[in-house]
């Protein structure tokens, strides 16, 4: 049999011709497998199909590997049903191979038949106990079947068998779904040890730390992600958001420019760009960016909030009112919204509705003394000293609670509160005088009485100065009750992070606005 006679010999004719001298050698079924595989991994599917066809003709369709690759190609071409049938053929040709069953299950999974896929995977798992791929895919199937505990079990098993990113990411996502943030962080960190350059892992971890308030760590991870992939949209947005909250508007803007060129139609991005301009006191640019964000996602209350805020700063109270009331009708539970609305209403001379809006804000808010301060000022200006005193006491309570957690207060707010305290003859209260920490310039109160002379409407810069210089609480305020004072608070802006689940609304009582 050592003759060089391994050519493909057509069965019938070959038989007759050579019966006399020698028996034709049967071609080996697998002799072209290496070529099929080579073309397949090179993604040269046309040549691959040609070789498969030839091979299947030569072997009359029993070459398992040829059928297998043909099914893989069909699946890549989107013909999942056909590929499923071919994989089933493979499973018949070689019932002991778990690979075939795995592929059958995979096709079923792609067809959305998760239950059937689970069954086939279980069958494959009987053939091959220690295959992480089976465990991982079972986990994903269970995830789609909403059986989270089983899914977790399988994914953990997969990770035990072989540590790889894919299972870890899926497991982390499940843990996040269940609210187990610490567990998710642990899972992601472990996965990161395996592939330290995975930007998806890095950004996800960064965002998780951001949610937990660990800004240093968050920044570290996000920075790493941006080093490996400087145009990572998620990373840019999250890192930019952090820079913004530290006042690095120019750096944040330069990062956003990268994102804007790759993902120009992102509402959170334009919202953040808008708030950067706001921080730089370029109000007109801020408004146009925010309006773009609003156009891209019209039902995002945070964009509306920011628009309301910017319009308040621009002294466009009527517009601010519309944005804020739109935001409130989309999202009820935010005290800041009601407070801003009340400020707008105060300027629009609608004192009654302003009061009820403040009331709502005060009932929703537990920690922010600004709400009570503004409310107290309004009440005081309306001559309701008793009500003002009540709010002032509430303010003191919140401040003392906050001081324990060493929060820094805005100097203008402190100043305003002290003046109000003096006016209410409770000024000797020790609340603020003990306040020695250097406050951050995050929140700026600006008071301005409509009775006092209006700041000239000039350029935006002039406006900005007017707003921030807190022209308001004039010396006269303590003397005459006829002068109305109210603080316009620049609430900290709300930069949006991608996929920010922390800002979900708490259940709030349904608020009926009186000014409808």
């Amino acid at each position, binding site marked *: 049999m*050592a003759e*060089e006679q*391994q*050519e*493909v010999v057509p069965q019938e004719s070959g*038989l007759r011709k050579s019966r006399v001298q020698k*028996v034709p050698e*049967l071609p*080996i*079924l*697998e*002799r*072209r*497998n*290496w070529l099929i*595989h*080579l073309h397949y*991994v*090179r*993604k040269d599917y046309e040549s691959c199909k040609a070789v498969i066809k*030839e091979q299947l003709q030569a072997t*009359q369709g*029993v070459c398992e590997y040829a059928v297998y690759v043909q099914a893989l190609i069909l699946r890549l071409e989107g013909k999942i049903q056909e590929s499923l049938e071919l994989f089933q053929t493979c499973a018949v040709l070689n019932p*002991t191979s778990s*690979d075939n069953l795995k592929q059958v299950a995979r096709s079923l999974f792609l067809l959305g038949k998760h239950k059937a896929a689970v069954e086939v995977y279980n069958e494959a798992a009987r053939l091959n106990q220690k295959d*992480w791929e089976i465990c991982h895919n079972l986990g994903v199937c269970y995830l789609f079947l909403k059986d989270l505990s089983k899914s977790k079990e399988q994914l953990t098993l997969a990770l035990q068998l072989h540590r*790889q990113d894919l299972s870890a990411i899926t497991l982390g996502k499940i843990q996040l779904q269940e609210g187990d943030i610490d567990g998710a962080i642990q899972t992601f960190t472990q996965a990161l040890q395996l*592939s330290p*350059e995975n930007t998806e892992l890095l950004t996800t971890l960064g965002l998780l730390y951001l949610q937990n308030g660990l800004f240093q760590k968050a920044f570290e991870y996000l920075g790493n992600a941006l*080093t490996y992939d*400087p*145009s990572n949209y998620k990373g840019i947005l999250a890192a930019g958001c952090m820079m913004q909250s530290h006042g690095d508007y120019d750096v944040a803007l*330069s990062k*956003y*420019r*990268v*994102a*804007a*060129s*790759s993902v*120009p139609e992102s509402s959170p991005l334009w919202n953040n*760009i808008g708030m950067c*301009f706001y921080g730089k006191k370029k109000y*007109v*640019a801020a408004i*146009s*960016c925010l309006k773009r964000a609003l156009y891209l996602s019209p039902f995002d209350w945070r964009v509306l909030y920011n628009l309301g805020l910017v319009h308040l700063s*621009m*002294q*466009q*109270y*009527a*517009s601010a*009112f519309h944005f804020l009331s739109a935001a409130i009708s989309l999202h009820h539970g935010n005290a800041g919204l009601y407070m801003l609305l009340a400020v707008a209403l105060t*300027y*629009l*001379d*609608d004192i009654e509705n302003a009061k009820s809006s403040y009331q709502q804000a005060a009932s929703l808010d537990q920690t922010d003394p600004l709400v009570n301060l503004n409310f107290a000022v309004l009440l005081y200006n309306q001559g309701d000293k008793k009500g003002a005193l009540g709010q002032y006491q509430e303010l003191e309570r919140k401040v003392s609670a906050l001081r324990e957690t060493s929060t820094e207060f805005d100097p203008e707010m402190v100043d305003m509160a002290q003046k109000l305290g003096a006016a209410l003859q409770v000024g000797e209260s020790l609340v603020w005088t003990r306040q020695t920490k250097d406050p951050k310039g995050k929140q700026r109160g600006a008071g301005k009485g409509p009775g006092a002379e209006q700041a000239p*409407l000039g350029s935006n810069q002039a406006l900005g100065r007017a707003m921030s210089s807190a022209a308001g609480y004039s010396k006269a305020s303590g003397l005459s009750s006829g002068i109305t004072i109210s603080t316009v608070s620049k609430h900290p802006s709300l930069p949006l992070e991608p996929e920010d689940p922390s800002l979900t609304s708490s259940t709030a009582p349904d608020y009926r606005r009186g000014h*409808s």
Partner: protein
Amino acid sequence: MSSSSDSSSREGESRSKWLDAHYDPVAGLNTLSSCIALADLHGDGDFKMVVGDMGHGPYNMKLKVYKGTARMSENALLDLPTGVAAFLMDQNEPRTPAIAVASGPFIYVYKNLRPYFKFTLPAMEVNALEKEVWDQAKEDKIDPVTLKEMLESIRDKAEIPLSVRSLRFLMLELQEMEAFVNTYKQQPLKRQTVITCMGTLKKNMADEDAVCCLVIGTESGELFILDPEAFTILTRVSLSSVPTLLDVTGQYDIEYRITVACRNGNVYILRRDSKRPKYCIELSAQVVGLVRVQKNIMIGTSHETLHGYSQKGKRLWTVTLPASIMTMSLLEQKSRGIQAVLVGLKNMEVHLYRDKNLLSVINTPDIVTGLCFGRYGREDDTLIMTTQGGGLLIKILKRTAQFEDKDTAPGPPTGQSIKLNVPKKTKLYVDQTLRERENAVAMHRVFQMDLYRLRLSAARAYVKALDASLAPVSSTMQEPLTLNAAVQGIGPQFKLILNLQNTSVNRPSMQLLISFLYDEKLYKIKPAFFKVPLLVPGLNYPIETFVECCSDKGISDIIKVFVLREGKSTPLLTAHINMPVSEGLAAA
């Protein structure tokens, strides 16, 4: 030389590194990186290129030898070559290497370009039951039908798969069986596998001209190391999958490492004294290229990525490539001690990587499928490329060429310098802002007032509609009906379809009438009055009528549909149909 000539700086740079020695777009070479070898075949210091040409389709398989730019000789091959290797078999002088061509289950060894020896892979174990059954058939104890049944039962249960003969037999029609059995029953039953990849391993010396062992991977998932002189199997290792690519370093008698990429997407690392793979790298994609550079393993996968792994299987880095990989090869400039990896991509580029740094890019006129770098002719650093279309490209690395690791940090991405598209503020905008600032209170009041009015009139209209049953859903509990209408046609004839439904649970509606109110100058409806049949709850009753538009002025109007109860003039419900403009001319 017709390389595409863009004026990009990178291209100009790569051109300066390489000399174009030869390009033949119609060389007719259909081959792979594994089937190209460079060897000093005649011991005269002039290196030849040996190419295993796969021909076209199942024909024209040839072993071609090139000298310079010309083909020197060619030998016919009987089957597709899997791999070609040049290796020294013995210590004899002159030190001329032999050529090993792996093909099917055989290795053909050529010396001085003449067939010298054929090695056949050892046959695999045959299923004992199967053998027994065929023995019985040989002695004519069982007929073909029984044979078929028995073989089928063996196939379904057995651990060892059936031989080709049995599988072929099982596919036959009944009438062909007898002849088949008679032909083959005298032959010994055997199971044969094929070679999937081949490499060489120095026997006991690291010298350039040391004797080499052949390392072969087979379809049965085994790895053999063959003695170069006797062609006996020195070592045999079983793998859990079929090997596809091999990389071998070291010396057989001292220490060696074999890196094997397998079809299950894993890469195994074998060492001398281990019967089992020492390390395993599990990849999520198939391996397209495998090259060992010093102590690291570079793996190109079908996910368009290039990974670097340590020799213990730890991932060091990953680079994403712009296109899918076709083939990979090692570039070793011995004079300078430079080692780098050549990666042939589908976008007609060949990238050169040292670790994760891209050193240079070569643009090629076609997709490169075969790469080989080494001494060719009398030139040390020659790059041989074969293309998908059968072309042959030879380039020589300039002696002055310097490869510098470029700064890996790509600098700020291009987007950073693009200005944000923020519209300028217009005069109109400023004017409106000023107006609002001055009159905010008044604007707000006017708006609120108008809003009240709007709400009031909306509420009034709603009450009126409810009172007069103007809505298409009846408001009375006694006759819960819904009506919707559809207009078909482009005019002047329209078909009006009214869908009437009784939405009560179990009360049929009776004695209902339908009438229309419309401008008689504009439309004619016939019939314009219906008696509605008994309405069974839940069923939809389509009622059709024809509307003719009498005007040719292109105007349209509303037609009102009333559903009435017999004897009552207040309608139960009303539908307003906005008629479309008639697009056809009214009939005269």
